[in-house]
Structures are given as structure tokens and as C-alpha cells.
């Protein structure tokens, strides 16, 4: 028998029972669509996180309080606060760092007249924008004298400015945080999110004002800096200066003894990549389980089909079909069904993941639709393999049927 005829026979058998064929591939369609969706979401999340971290620039250094493990990532609220404004001042003198800013992060209700809103408050130094560049839309940013004099001034994120002042000009306006009244001196342009913070909702004030005057804190949340030359040298210099200031005897450079941790953007990117990959693997594994379930569904329905078509198989054998021809016919049927299911599943997966990414993008700024092109190819390939693996057993059953018994089968 020619291959083409075998293929035609299989296609004819599939089309002869359309309803069952559709039901057969449903599991595969959903399984492949789930894999595509999960891959797309996983990669989208990873891409999003990487964008958040990597647009800081590769020469940005973070110094965070640490309990000895050494951390990468956002400040840990449960660690003893060890960094001070004076630490930042000391680091400013280093030739390896071109800009240093102590940062105090908190959140509190901010109000203007009758309007109030819960906002993130960032206390920073005048050099902050040299590390985290942002444009001022109106007015000006903090200057050195604002910081040194504990000035009661604030620069608003554009959304906070709109929320509090509405159509009024916010420059020169007064806002109240806790019991302190601050004068608005500037408004940022629209900035979006960075490090998962919506910068447009932030209120930036001098770090001195934030710590001593408003929140009564002795320490800052973290210190950020921009290296002027080699980033590894800058990190070492930072560790050296801070160990000296914190009286830590640590000539061997064991970060476990430090009460702070120095990390760079590239460390953060590496961590995020690992997390992202783990996330992708996890999501894909869950989706893979649905594929196995789909494959078992295929096997089940193929077995039913073999039983139902026992007489057809007997007849085919009576007119001269060999075992191999029967085996191939059923195997082709399974593989044709599943690879078609794979194509449909990929199409469905692309549609659903694109839709969901579009919806997510409404809520999460800069979220992008990501679909690795190899996922399409892989989806169809995996579906085909599933058909092959789960089709073999029913096909063998069909091939092994005794023609006499098969012909008599009621």
C-alpha cells in the first residue's frame, strides 16, 4: 500500500467521525494552548522584571542593611536598619563614586486642603537624579541647601500632583504629610514604573526632612550610588568605607560579617533571570501535566475507536491489509489528530495569551506581550509526539486483532 493511500485512509476515517475526532483532540488543544499561555506569561513577567531592573543602568550600586547573608533586591523590612545619612556623606568623598544618595522610603497620607491620598514618600539627596534619572516637568528638583537645611519642600509625581491639586497649579502649593506642611517646588514628567514602584504616585522630599522632621527615624532605608569607574572597584571601596565606619573587623572580606550588603544592577538582573526561568519552568510543568492528561484522553478514545471498528479492521485484513498497514493507519490517525490539535492549540494559545497580555498591560505599565517563536514549533512538535506515544498502544491492539474474530465481532 502506498503511503499516500495510507494517509488518505486515515484522513477519511477521521472525517467519517467528526464529532469524536473533535472530542479526541480537545484535550490536546487545551493542553497546548495552556503551554503557550504559560510560556507567554512566564516570559512576559521575566521581560517585565528585567526591564524594571535593567533600565537603572549597569553602574548603579545599592547599599542595603543586611544581617549577614548578603541580599540582592528590594530592601528587607525585617533587617535591623544600620545605614545613616552620615554613611552616605562619607561615601560621597570616595573618588570611585560619582553620585551618592541616601534614600528613606515610607508611605503616609498626604493632603492638600480637603483632598487626601496615600502616597509613597521618598526622602532623597540632591544627587538622586544623577543615579535615577528623571525629568522635571514643572518647577525644580531638590538642591543641596534644601537637603542641608531640612527644607519643607516636595517634588510630586505627576499623578499625585493631579490627584491632590486637580486643575490647580501645584507649584507653590502646600501639602501636609503627618503634621508637617511642605511647599511643592516641582512636578516630575510622567515616569511610569521602576523597580515595581509607580514613580508617578511618589512624593520626593529631602532625606533630612523625611528622617528627622516627619518620620523621626535615625536611619535611612538604603543608599544608592553611581560608580564613576569600574563597578567592582566601587563596590569594594564602598565595603571598605562602611566597614571602617561601622567598626567591622573584616579583613578577609567575608560579607557574612557585614551589617550591610552592596549589590549592583547586574547582580539584580542575574537574580531576576534565575527567578524568571524558575517561574517559566514551573508554569510549563503545570501545562505539561495537562498534555499528559490530554494524551491519555487520546489513548482512551482511540481504544474505544479500535473496539468500535473491530469489524472494519477484520474486513481490511480479509481484503489483504497486513498488520503493519493496520498499525500505521491507526498511528497516522492518532498523529494526524494530535498534530492538528497542536496547530489549533497553538493558535488558541497565541490568541488567549495575546488577549491576556493586552488586559494585563491595562493595569501594569510597560507589560509587553512576549511569545518565544520556538514555542509555536515546539507546541506542534509536542502534540505530534503525544499522538505517537499514546497512539502506539491502541494501534498495536488494532494490528494484533485476529481477522476471524474481528469479522464476527458484534
Amino acid at each position, binding site marked *: *500500500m*502506498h503511503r499516500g*493511500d495510507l494517509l488518505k*485512509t486515515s484522513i*477519511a476515517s477521521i472525517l*467519517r467521525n467528526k464529532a469524536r475526532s473533535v472530542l479526541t483532540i480537545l484535550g490536546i488543544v487545551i493542553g497546548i494552548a495552556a503551554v503557550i499561555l504559560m510560556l507567554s506569561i512566564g516570559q512576559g513577567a521575566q521581560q517585565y522584571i528585567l526591564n524594571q531592573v535593567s533600565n537603572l543602568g549597569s553602574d548603579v550600586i545599592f547599599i542595603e542593611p543586611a544581617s549577614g547573608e548578603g541580599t540582592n533586591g528590594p530592601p528587607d523590612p525585617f533587617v535591623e536598619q544600620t545605614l545613616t545619612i552620615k554613611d552616605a556623606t562619607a561615601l560621597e568623598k570616595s573618588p570611585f563614586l560619582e553620585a551618592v544618595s541616601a534614600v528613606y522610603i515610607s508611605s503616609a497620607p498626604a493632603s492638600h486642603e480637603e483632598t487626601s491620598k496615600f502616597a509613597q514618600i521618598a526622602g532623597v539627596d540632591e544627587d538622586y537624579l544623577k543615579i535615577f534619572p528623571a525629568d522635571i516637568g514643572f518647577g525644580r528638583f531638590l538642591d543641596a541647601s534644601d537637603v542641608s537645611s531640612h527644607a519643607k519642600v516636595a517634588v510630586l509625581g505627576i499623578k499625585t500632583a493631579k490627584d491632590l491639586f486637580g486643575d490647580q497649579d501645584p507649584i507653590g502649593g502646600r501639602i501636609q504629610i503627618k503634621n508637617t506642611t511642605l511647599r511643592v517646588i516641582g512636578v516630575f514628567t510622567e515616569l511610569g514604573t521602576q523597580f515595581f514602584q509607580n514613580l508617578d504616585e511618589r512624593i520626593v522630599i529631602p532625606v533630612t526632612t523625611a528622617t528627622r522632621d516627619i518620620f523621626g527615624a535615625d536611619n535611612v532605608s538604603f543608599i544608592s550610588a553611581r560608580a564613576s569607574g569600574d563597578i567592582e572597584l566601587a563596590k569594594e571601596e564602598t565595603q571598605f568605607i562602611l566597614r571602617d565606619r561601622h567598626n567591622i573587623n573584616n579583613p578577609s572580606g567575608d560579607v557574612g560579617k557585614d551589617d550591610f550588603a552592596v549589590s549592583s544592577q547586574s547582580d539584580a538582573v542575574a537574580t531576576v533571570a534565575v527567578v524568571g526561568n524558575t517561574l517559566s519552568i514551573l508554569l510549563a510543568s503545570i501545562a505539561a501535566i495537562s498534555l499528559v492528561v490530554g494524551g491519555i484522553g487520546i489513548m482512551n478514545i482511540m481504544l474505544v475507536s479500535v473496539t468500535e471498528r473491530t*469489524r*472494519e479492521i*477484520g*474486513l*481490511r*485484513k*480479509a*481484503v*489483504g*491489509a*497486513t*498488520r*503493519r*498497514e493496520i498499525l500505521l493507519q491507526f498511528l497516522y490517525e492518532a498523529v494526524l489528530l494530535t498534530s492538528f490539535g497542536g496547530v489549533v492549540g497553538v493558535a488558541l494559545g497565541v490568541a488567549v495569551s495575546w488577549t491576556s497580555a493586552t488586559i494585563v498591560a491595562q493595569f501594569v505599565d510597560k507589560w509587553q506581550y512576549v511569545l518565544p517563536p520556538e514555542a509555536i514549533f515546539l507546541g506542534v512538535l509536542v502534540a505530534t509526539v503525544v499522538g505517537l506515544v499514546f497512539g502506539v498502544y491502541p494501534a498495536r491492539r488494532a494490528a494484533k486483532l485476529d*481477522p*476471524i474474530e474481528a*469479522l464476527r465481532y458484534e
Partner: protein
Amino acid sequence: MSSIIHLTNVVKEYVNGDVVTPALRGISLDIEAGEYVALMGPSGSGKSTLMHIMGFLDHATRGEYLFEGGDVSVLDDDALARMRRDRVGFVFQAFNLLPKTSVLENVSLPMMYAGVTNGERRRRAMEAIEEVGLGHRVNFLSNQLSGGEKQRVAIARAIVNDPAVIFADEPTGNLDTKSGTDVLNLLSDLNNKGRTIVMVTHETEAAEHAKRIVRMRDGQLLSDLVTHDRRTGGYNK
């Protein structure tokens, strides 16, 4: 005439655990080209088993089976499948047409397994369909046909590879008298054109169409009676 089927002392035993059930107890039979043989007997007589062995659907346990002079016992499964494909044709009681498939495709099926080209397949299928008088039903689906028509499609399918023998297993068992007679007349026509037919039946009326009646009981031949060709006006039962 040369002998197509030559059976000598053929035994078929079914073994189930320690129990051996004999189905054929030493059958010796010769069938020559152009014969029309009716194989008769009550159920359990072994007539179907004998037909399955002669039709390459089953192996004899012992004894010699020569088909067109060749030893069948040495053939493996694939070789038996090729013999079924090329040398014999089957007609079954239940028709066994492919469901929801056209008359043309049903008749073409054996040629597909034989690897006949598309055009040739169509030409020969049309020829066979005309021969059984269903030229007007070529594109009908199997489920749109009457019982008699279905059996005629099955006969067309049986002859399409130009076999040496046609085996008909109770071909009228599922048909009313009129359609049954039509089918039997068709088989007689085919025999008159020179085709060799072996028909398994338990109906005397059906067997009367044959030119030779072989009766079986308990796995053995009971009688082997050659009736005269009715066309020659000779002895008729």
C-alpha cells in the same frame, strides 16, 4: 482441469489450556478452477473453519494445503495477507462495507492495499460495479443502499482483484428472499463466466445454485455430490 485447492487430511484443533477441541478431523478435498461448491452443514460442523483455512484467514493445525500447487503452511502472516489480497475474495453475511463510504471507494479498497494506481483502480472498480449491476449507484454511500445492493457491492469488492476463488460465507443470511435470489443469481452468473466460487451456507435453496454440494458434520466430510450443470439440462438433485 487443474486443482486450485488441494487439501489432504487437514486437521484443525483449538487448544484452550489442557483442553483440545477438534474443529476439523482430517479433511481431504480438491476444488478445481471454475467450480461452484456449496459447503453445507449445521453450525459446529466445521464448515466456517474450513473456509477460513482455505481463505488464508487461519492456519491448519496439521495436514497439507496446496493452493495453486503451492504449500500454504510455510506462509507467514504477511504472506497470508498478500494471498488474501491477490488470490481470493470474500463475501460475508454481514456485508462488512466501510461505513459512510461510497460504493466506488468500498470496491477500490482491496486494490489500494495491492498498490494499484489511482486511474487503474477507478477503471477496474467501475468495471466490477457494472458487472454486479450497480453502475447507477457508484457514488452512493454504503448506508444509503438496500441489503441486496450492499451484498452486490461486497461481491464487486471480492472480484475486483481478479481472484482465483471467491469465498461467500452465508451471503444470503441477512437478505430477504427476493434480494437473496438476486445475489445467488449474480454468483451463478459469475461462475458461468468462469469464476470459482466456494459458498458456505445452511440453506438448501442457496446450495441448489451450486454445482457441487459438500456436506459436513462434526469436522468431517459427510458427502460430496456433484450436481449437473442446469444449463446442460442434466440431473438436478
